[in-house]
């Protein structure tokens, strides 16, 4: 049963990954990337890595890809101009692809990753929670790398904000405290007027 599921997920994953690079429309490519993430999360679930699988969906599918789509949808990409340089860049592309293939072949072969060297992980006992296991490892053994990574991310956020935040003088910003302090008397003036028909003041007053 697990094998059938694994092959189903793998087939969908490979299909989705191929579509990401072959589909012309960038929005559809991004959506296929979402599908690829989702199916790889499914494969991780089969490996009993439920925390990583759910976090993959939560972070990449739920947040990163949404922002990705957000940007891609607003781009007005001319498809014909994208294909213009195809023959010009082809030789360089082939060289890079060949290099990557050779490098991967050098490392990812049976002598390093064969079943006799890396045996299948033993199924965890019931009641085992890899959320707790990961949490314990992250906050004890690997606490310094973890903290350093978060500091680097904070620096990246601040850098991104300072790079995009230019010309603070001409920016139109709302002063929220002033908006909150506003009372009706500041904005609305009630003008008392003489009614034109004194005997029927209800209609005229409204």
């Amino acid at each position, binding site marked *: *049963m697990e094998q059938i599921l694994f092959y189903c997920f793998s087939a969908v994953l490979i299909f989705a990954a191929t579509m990401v690079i072959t589909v012309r*429309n960038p*929005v*559809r490519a991004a*959506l296929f990337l*979402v599908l690829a993430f989702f199916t790889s999360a499914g494969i991780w679930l089969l490996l009993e890595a*439920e*925390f990583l699988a*759910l*976090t993959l*969906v*939560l972070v990449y*599918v*739920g*947040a990163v890809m*949404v*922002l990705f*789509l*957000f940007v891609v*949808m*607003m781009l007005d990409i001319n498809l014909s101009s994208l294909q213009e340089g195809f023959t010009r860049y082809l030789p360089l592309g082939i060289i890079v692809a060949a290099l990557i293939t050779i490098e991967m072949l050098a490392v990812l072969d049976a002598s390093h990753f064969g079943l006799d060297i890396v045996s299948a992980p*033993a199924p965890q006992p019931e009641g*085992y*929670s890899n*959320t*707790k*296991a990961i949490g*314990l*490892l992250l906050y004890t053994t690997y606490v310094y790398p973890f903290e350093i990574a978060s500091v680097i991310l904070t620096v990246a956020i601040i850098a991104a904000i300072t790079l995009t935040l230019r010309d603070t003088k001409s920016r139109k910003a*709302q002063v*929220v405290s002033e908006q909150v302090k506003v009372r009706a008397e500041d904005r609305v003036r009630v003008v008392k007027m003489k009614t034109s028909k004194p005997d029927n003041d209800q209609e005229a007053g409204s």
Partner: protein
Amino acid sequence: MMDFVLYTLLPILLKIMLIVMPLMIAVAYLTYAERKVIGYIQLRIGPNRVGPRGWLQPIADAVKLMFKEVILPRQSNLYLFVVAPVLAIGPALAAWAVMPFDAGLILADIDAGLLYILAITSMGVYGVIVAGWASNSRYAFLGALRSAAQVVSYEIAMGFALVGVLVAAGSLNLGEIVLGQQGGFWHWYFIPLFPLFVVYFLSGVAETNRAPFDVAEGESEIVAGFHVEYSGMAFAIFFLAEYADMILISMLAAVLFMGGWLSPFQGTVLEPAFAWVPGLIWLLMKTSFFLFLYLWFRATFPRYRYDQIMRLGWKVFIPVTLVWLVVVSTMQVMDIGPWFTEASDLAETMMVEPAADVEQVQVDSL
């Protein structure tokens, strides 16, 4: 294979039906309740023509929508236009798999239930974005963009609020979170986690694009937002997804902060008098309260301006949750009762147990 179908697949399918069918009926009557409640708040009667007191109104609406033509705009991206409603309804229904309705009454009792719900509900925004883009309409596209930015912003505040519950309960399993609140309503998490409770529910209102955060639809600004090009059943599916999400958020609020299926009279003199009430009834009553809040908000508050929504999410809710997380963690460590005495013991035992497991894993991998 036959055994697998008979003893595994069939019961699960049956249970799914048992959850989805009442959910669909609940959605139908939630629309009726919405029109009635808002009607009475505005001193109107609301729907009262179809059937006795208008009770058949939702059925009539459903039949009408089913027989309406689904119009496919010629300039739209047809494939994505059809897929979008499916992307909206799928996550809205899938999230119900881990909802504990009563002690042991749950479809999939998984350990990381809370994480699962967060992950699955975060997928719901794709339906909105894809619908807005595929329609090839300015209004729909504006609605989709507004919705995407809003949902992504409020998800962070919501996630932090749920982390507070997680710290208090020491578990991601929804059933265990409910059991952590046992012992009378003063044990429920809405008291020690009150700011998180408020942030959670308001973020939930924002996540479901309901008033006063309904800029994604904003009738007065962008016609109907992301689903302006949809008609008939395709439109009805977006509608179903939105209301199913509302019920989900309300029931989650009841489970996480209001003791789920636990009786509010637990630990008081009234407990034996109400012992015959099944837990499901308590859960449904608590859920109805939150659903009423949704309708009440809609009838009371004018729509937020877009920049105010962003400000509320990023500059108010997230700092509030961050501060309160520190407070909750301190309360948890200091064993402040009545909420954190048992739970902290639970957490301590868990701290000891997996430590051994982790070492074992490391040894194995060596």
